[in-house]
């Protein structure tokens, strides 16, 4: 399932050139790679950004879990925690939503000039003559842009159009140097797609187990320049972004709940990431959404859809849901008060509770779409489509199924794993799992291996929760340091090989969970002078479990003075598990903690009680 860098693939598919360097890279990779079947279903080669792309330095990415937590906190603060569930419907009214998602394609070149795409480079350092609309310069379509664009369209199950064309959309704005944007208005390159949202994706409960949303079309278009507003009335312009290739994904108006609409945007983002089509997530500005909202009275299915308004430029998933709710409620208020809805464009500020009017129909520009006379039609060969279809990364849904069914992760954990660190965390998970598995195999020495789910679950738990705990506020003064993952799943602070070693020792009960957690924290903070194994050895952290006799002595000690509890345990018809746990806790607290395995303790305690029950 290796995917090739766009530039390289482009040279091969579009110009028939095969780079020897690339071939060597392939063979090396094949050797290094674990042969294990489950190695990275998706995005194993996410790191293969096109060669000349400047690496985005980017604003710090807020981990999804942290974001959720913060959002939950905020919601609690505003007493919205409960309200949100109820906010999905309004009695007597039906909401209809269609969405346009703009995503920046992962390419090294701009759409119509060979200038390099960049993220945070010096302003105006990657600008071709055409990018600033220099008189006499012409657009040069960069074929390699098609590769991520087609991947995206295929991931959205679209029909790829053999012939598509470019049109000019005219309007004056200083971030648009030509006075028009080149887009695909009349004939787009992909049409009639669909995306299925499942309950586990988090859709509104009213949508049931799953809902399928149609994708009207996907079109290629240019991004605009970046405006840098200065304190005085000046606007500075950075043309690095102008002409960078975008795709616009236009859905059918088939969503009826705000939550589902937000989930759609999140799922599109995840899909585009998985198939290596998109540069970055919504939070870093790589994805923007416009939503069209209308309401009509429930009951009569023949009622035409209400007048729609468009809310422009939503840049977070939360904003999508909040803005839809606010706009729906505003429209219903207007209509219930006997008013009408004007077809207009509205805006949404993060943290606000109301959409605000930007411009009405009368302020609408007639875009005067005209076929671009300089640009030939784009003709896409079936062979290219077939090749990309075959090499397309596995869809997140399939990977999610596998994580749950084979690796025994809970649905919630599996979703987090796929979403964390733009998909890098799940790569890290596979790496750690591979390391652990290799050690277990060596240890088994031909004997039967333990059940996959048993140790994969441990790896899942540690790569999601224990690793997540490191960066929370409880972790002390260094907790601000976020974990850095490469797209391939390598982590500088907690190398996967070290975590494999740690989990191997833990899983085979050579160290306790407490020691393991401390070692992980030490590793993260850089406190360990040597590796995990050496540290355990040098500091003698091995788990030296009590012998059965020693356990029994401990049990005798603990049971002293606990006759009442013991009596209940022996006599009760329904076994009081909590009482048993109380005794185990007491045993661990009173005894040599570092030498007690709660599981063994429980087992021996149960044996003792069973004997008493039998004797009673």
């Amino acid at each position: 399932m290796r995917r090739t860098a766009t530039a390289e693939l482009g040279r091969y598919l579009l110009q028939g050139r095969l780079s020897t360097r690339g071939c060597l890279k392939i063979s090396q990779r094949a050797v290094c790679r674990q042969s294990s079947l489950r190695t990275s279903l998706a995005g194993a080669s996410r790191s293969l950004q096109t060669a000349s792309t400047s690496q985005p330095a980017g604003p710090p990415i807020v981990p999804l879990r942290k974001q959720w937590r913060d959002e939950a906190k905020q919601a609690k603060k505003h007493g919205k925690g409960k309200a949100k569930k109820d906010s999905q419907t309004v009695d007597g009214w039906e909401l209809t939503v269609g969405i346009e998602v703009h995503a920046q394609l992962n390419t090294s070149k701009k759409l119509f000039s060979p200038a390099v795409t960049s993220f945070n480079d010096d302003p105006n350092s990657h600008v071709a003559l055409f990018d600033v609309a220099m008189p006499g310069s012409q657009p040069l379509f960069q074929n390699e842009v098609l590769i991520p664009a087609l991947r995206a369209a295929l991931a959205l199950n679209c029909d790829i159009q053999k012939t598509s064309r470019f049109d000019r959309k005219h309007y004056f704005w200083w971030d648009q140097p030509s006075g028009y944007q080149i887009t695909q208005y009349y004939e787009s390159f992909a049409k009639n797609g669909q995306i299925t949202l499942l309950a586990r994706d988090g859709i509104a409960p009213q949508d049931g187990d799953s809902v399928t949303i149609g994708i009207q079309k996907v079109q290629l278009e240019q991004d605009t320049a970046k405006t840098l507003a200065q304190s005085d009335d000046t606007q500075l312009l950075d043309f690095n972004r102008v002409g960078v290739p975008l795709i616009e994904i236009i859905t059918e108006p088939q969503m009826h709940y705000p939550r589902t609409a937000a989930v759609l945007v999140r799922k599109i983002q995840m899909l585009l990431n998985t198939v290596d089509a998109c540069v970055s997530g919504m939070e870093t500005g790589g994805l923007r959404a416009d939503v069209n909202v209308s309401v009509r009275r429930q009951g009569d299915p023949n009622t035409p859809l209400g007048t729609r308004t468009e809310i422009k430029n939503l840049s977070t998933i939360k904003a999508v849901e909040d803005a839809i709710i606010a706009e729906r409620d505003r429209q219903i208020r207007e209509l219930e008060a006997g008013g009408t809805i004007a077809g207009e464009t509205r805006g949404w500020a993060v943290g606000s509770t109301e959409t605000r009017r930007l411009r009405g129909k009368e302020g609408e520009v007639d875009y005067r779409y005209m076929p671009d006379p300089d640009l030939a039609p784009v003709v896409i060969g079936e062979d290219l489509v077939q090749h990309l279809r075959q090499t397309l990364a596995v869809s997140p849904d399939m990977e999610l199924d596998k994580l749950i069914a084979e690796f025994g992760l809970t649905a919630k954990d599996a979703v987090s794993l796929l979403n964390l660190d733009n998909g890098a965390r799940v790569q890290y998970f596979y790496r750690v799992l591979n390391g652990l598995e290799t050690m277990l195999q060596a240890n088994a020495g031909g004997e039967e291996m333990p059940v996959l789910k048993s140790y994969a679950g441990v790896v899942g738990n540690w790569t999601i929760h224990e690793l997540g705990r490191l960066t929370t506020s409880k972790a002390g003064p260094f907790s601000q340091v976020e974990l850095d993952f490469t797209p391939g799943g390598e982590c500088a602070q907690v190398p996967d090989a070290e975590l494999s070693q740690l989990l191997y020792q833990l899983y085979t009960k050579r160290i306790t969970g407490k020691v393991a957690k401390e070692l992980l924290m030490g590793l993260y903070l850089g406190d360990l002078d040597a590796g995990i194994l050496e540290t355990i050895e040098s500091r003698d952290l091995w788990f030296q479990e009590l012998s059965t006799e020693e356990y029994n002595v401990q049990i005798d000690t603990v049971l002293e003075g606990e006759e009442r509890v013991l009596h209940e345990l022996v006599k009760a018809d329904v076994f009081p598990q909590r009482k048993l746990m109380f005794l185990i806790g007491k045993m661990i607290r009173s005894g040599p903690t570092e030498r007690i395995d709660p599981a063994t303790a429980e087992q021996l305690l149960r044996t003792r009680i069973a004997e008493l029950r039998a004797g009673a």
Partner: protein
Amino acid sequence: MRAALTRRAAQSSPASPRCVQCLQRRRHSTYNHFITQNERSPEPGAIRLAVKDNIATFNLPTSCASSILAEHPSPYEATIVQQLREHVNAHVVGKTNMDEFGMGSHSLNSAHGPVRNPAGQDLSTGGSSGGSAVAVQVDDADIALGTDTGGSVRLPAAWIGCVGYKPSYGMLSRYGVVPYANSLDTVGLLARATTPIRASIFDSSIYQLTDPKDPTCLSLKTRQRCIKVTPVTLPDLSDVTIGLPLEYNIAELDPSIRSAWSQTAELLAANGATVVPVSLPTTPEALCAYYVLAPAEASSNLAKYDGVRYGVRSTTSDAAGDTLYSETRGVGFGDEVKRRILLGTYTLSSDAIDNYFLQAQRVRRLVQRDFDRVFRLASPLHEPVQFDLSDMPDTTDLQDKTGPAQVDFLLCPTAPTCPPRVEDVKTRGSVASYVNDVFTVPASLAGLPAVSVPVRSQDQGTAKHGVPASMQIIGQYWDDRRMLALAELMERLGV
């Protein structure tokens, strides 16, 4: 070369605009045909090349004769200029005056004032490449570059009395040519005779060169296909059939022009050529289609002139006035440019596009089919179309029962009249001017090569201005070379 590039790069920075000026001089040329001139004299043996002001050159500004691009130093050079410098040792002598952005038929709509006709100061030079035509006519240049969108090279050639050649669309690179209407724009050449034009483009092999910077410039593959199916040499006149399109014999045709046309046809026939009447039924609609399509593309192409990145910017805020940039664009553009922008903006608007823009595109296809039907050579660009007699208008003349005659070239006047007086042009208004393009526009819509050559008419009416009538030869796509050979032959025959 590298040093030169570095220097040029420095010039393009706003800090050193003086360097641009030290290499140019705004000298008063006799007929106001130059906007700027190169101070350096050409080396001996170099070809003196005048360049229309909408074609990018180093050292001399590229202003398209517009205030909005006054003194605009182009940071790069047009491919065609570079090719002529490298392949035929051309030396750029200056930038020629023109109608602003190529919009006009008389070279009057210029920020630098009108170009004057050497044959008579009160006569129109034709446009929009009037400055280029005058530059070669008065021997300030050996050849001149113009641009031809709907006749802008051929019309001034006809009214000045020189040769004006518009090549097949896509043969010569447009990179560096400021677009007026991209789908029609071509780089054309003017000279006192046909031979220097043929030599500079065909003997030099420039016509074979591709340009990856111009997406509409034919690719190597297409070029090879065209070269393969198009004969190179003109056969003996006895094997040449020349068509006279009946629809061009309009009521408005000046009698002296009509007589020059028939004299030319008779002379060719006397020398062995077969001359037949042919029908191009869509001709009457072609002019209307042109004046919908060209302004539509122009309104789009000229949207970039906002003064933000280059060019002249209004001193008031960009947002002053009714809409963004209205001040800058209001001051910067001349009246004719504004008229065409408004026209194009309207025909592209959602209410009008079906009735105007799309309709005009359909007419354009019909015009091109008309030509394909009469030419003996099939177009190398399209699949051959089977023409059914029943699809042809009843007026179509049939040669025999298999259909109408097929021809190698079409012969018709370049313009319906002799050069009009500037005063009359001004009083009649702009729409009347559009009519002058009626014979040149069809070849532009079809992308075909055409050349305007002066003919010596016996009629005293044309000779009174000293400007001979001019005939236009139109060829099948890529048949430029044989078409120019026919023009040269006509010159030799003393047509």
